[in-house]
């Protein structure tokens, strides 16, 4: 092939000029930014650059936030008509769209996810959640939740670091639409977009105290969970912390929704469209570095196509670009924190020691920051820890099955039940499998698709309650079946 060319791609970095990051941030309480006392750094996980100093909320700060939320609830927000509340939500949604690029760049800097994902997934979906719930605000009596559903009061919301702004939207938009006020704590390692959202609340002239944002670590989260002035706890995070929260609120009047871990089975039947399936497998586990509670982290392959699928999957993985999250061509960015990287490394090592076979494409990882190459383990059995525990990283465990019944049995053999995937071109098989699987979300011939109209949540240890859709409204209204 004498004239064969090499085809190199140039870097295509997104500019960070659009964001202004302050050297230090306080809390957002009663419509104003108030200074914190103690601070901790938030860093860019792609290069360990310190981006800003973040306030660590203590008891006094959480008390002030809850007080502001209660005042706003009693005096303003619960009295306002749904139509008026809806106007504020629409306004917030529109401002988020107008400032989408700013949010996307900030999210990528603070989280390490590729700009392509923050720009095309996180931020548009976050705005979509506000638009969707804005529409519900004046129609709650038609949501099938009783003739005059009432808000719960003050909601304490604790969100994770994997989709910072999107998880904020999942929590804040339905709470506000239903007439609640909120005290929200973003994750310790990704507070910046929540603080930018606070500016959006000011810009939208949202009444003071309707949204309060306190930053901090697990100790701040505990103060919110145990605060007597809070009526409802909404948490997204690990099953471990979810259990602590469930114990803490059990003897109280607080209602609670938990969106926890997962170990989703992504099942490939032998009649699946293989090339599409490979794209779906890659999307299922390497999207957002695998920091996805509903990630397709257990790949179940029908044995007669296993070799072909693995061959094509490995070829496809050779093309994944890992590196600078701000580059518009990057597929997989940085692991969010040093702690998370250590956890992924530890579990992968367990995979080795338990006898699974590890494979990664050749890829050069940056020297600074937190990185883990896309990895698959083959020869995995149900007994392996990497088939049972959530790794929350770009690591795929591959198992095989011979009959559809075996696939279902293996898929359901887990304490989790958040999501599952089915790959088959036969409709009857897909419908049958989806009825057997014990998972809150089931995707057929696709994976990791999200929409504000669709309820999201888990079976078993993956959580309580649903977020999104009509079902998600039930988590923020009184007089519904779960109370």
């Amino acid at each position: 092939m004498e004239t064969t060319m090499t085809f190199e791609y140039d870097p295509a970095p997104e500019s960070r000029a659009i964001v202004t990051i302050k050297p230090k941030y306080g809390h957002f309480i009663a419509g104003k930014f108030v200074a914190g006392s103690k601070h901790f750094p938030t860093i860019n996980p792609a290069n360990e650059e310190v981006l800003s100093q973040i306030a660590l909320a203590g008891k006094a700060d959480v008390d002030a936030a809850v007080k502001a939320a209660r005042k706003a609830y009693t005096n303003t927000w619960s009295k306002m008509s749904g139509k008026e509340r809806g106007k504020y939500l629409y306004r917030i949604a529109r401002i988020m769209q107008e400032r989408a690029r700013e949010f996307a760049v900030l999210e990528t800097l603070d989280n390490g996810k590729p700009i392509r994902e923050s720009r095309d997934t996180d931020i548009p979906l976050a705005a979509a959640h506000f638009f969707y719930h804005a529409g519900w605000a004046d129609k709650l009596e038609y949501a099938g939740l009783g003739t005059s559903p009432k808000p719960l009061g003050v909601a304490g919301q604790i969100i994770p670091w994997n989709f910072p702004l999107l998880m904020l939207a999942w929590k804040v938009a339905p709470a506000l639409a239903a007439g609640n006020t909120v005290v929200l704590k973003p994750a310790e390692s990704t507070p910046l977009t929540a603080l930018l959202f606070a500016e959006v609340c000011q810009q939208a002239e949202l009444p003071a105290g309707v949204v309060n944002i306190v930053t901090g670590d697990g100790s701040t989260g505990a103060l919110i969970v145990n605060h007597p002035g809070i009526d409802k706890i909404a948490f997204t995070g690990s099953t471990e912390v979810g259990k602590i929260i469930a114990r803490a609120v059990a003897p109280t009047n607080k209602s609670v929704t938990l969106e926890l871990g997962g170990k989703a089975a992504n099942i490939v039947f032998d009649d699946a469209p293989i090339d599409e399936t490979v794209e779906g497998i890659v999307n299922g586990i390497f999207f957002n570095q695998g920091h996805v509670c509903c990630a397709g982290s257990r790949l179940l392959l029908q044995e007669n196509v296993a070799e072909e699928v693995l061959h094509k999957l490995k070829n496809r993985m050779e093309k994944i670009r890992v590196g600078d999250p701000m580059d518009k061509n990057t597929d997989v960015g940085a692991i969010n924190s040093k702690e998370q990287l250590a956890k992924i490394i530890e579990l992968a090592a367990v995979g080795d020691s338990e006898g699974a076979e590890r494979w990664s494409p050749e890829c050069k990882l940056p020297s600074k920051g937190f990185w883990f190459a896309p990895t698959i383990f083959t020869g995995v059995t149900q007994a392996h820890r990497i088939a049972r525990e959530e790794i929350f990283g770009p690591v795929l465990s591959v198992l095989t099955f011979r009959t559809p019944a075996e696939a279902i049995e293996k898929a359901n053999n887990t304490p989790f039940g958040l999501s599952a995937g089915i790959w088959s071109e036969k409709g009857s098989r897909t419908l049958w499998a989806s009825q057997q699987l014990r998972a809150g979300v089931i995707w057929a011939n696709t994976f990791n698709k999200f929409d504000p109209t669709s309820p999201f949540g888990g079976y078993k240890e993956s959580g309580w309650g649903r977020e999104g859709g009509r079902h998600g409204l039930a988590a923020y209204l009184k007089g519904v079946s779960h109370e």
Partner: protein
Amino acid sequence: MVGVARKHLDLIGGQHVPVAAVSTAFPSGRASMPVKIQDTQDAIDAGAAEIDMVIDRGAFLAGRYIDVFNEIVQIRQVCGDKAHLKVIFETGELVTYDNVRKASFLAMAAGADFIKTSTGKVAPAATPPVVLVMLEAVRDFYEMTQVRIGVKPAGGIRNTKDAIKQLVLVNETVGPDWLNPKLFRIGASALLNDLLMQRMKMDDGYYTSPQYVTMD
């Protein structure tokens, strides 16, 4: 016309430039087999080194795959080793990706050197997803047989940016071995003008009006 082209190329020192001819009742493919064979034979006799045949879409869509296959085999025999054979699918008429993949395998198994999306007379033509499906078929055929088949998207690629997207598809699906005119070509006369205009921009810094490049 093949003869005219060959004669003029030879006159101006273009002996190394092969002449390609469309054939088999291009673009519709609606003629009897003897006519298609004669059409091809005439072009080769006049000096054509490449034959662009069209498949019979009517037969394909009616499920008469074996007829489509046999036609390609017969034209392949006429071409022999004198002419390179490209098989045009007219993907805009096949409509579905399943059909495009099926047609790709049919043509490759029947002896095509190249598979080509379109005649240029029907839209949509060489859309990136259609080209991806053809490249995947070529990649899978290569893994089965170790034979490299060429791919030619034609129609609808109007500017340099579109062309770069096609090159990325090739690079990431079948690999850099295919980034070679023997295995990958783009058929698009409008593209040439944009390429010229991009070159002019590199020289003088301005993206000019298309009136400064010739239409043909």
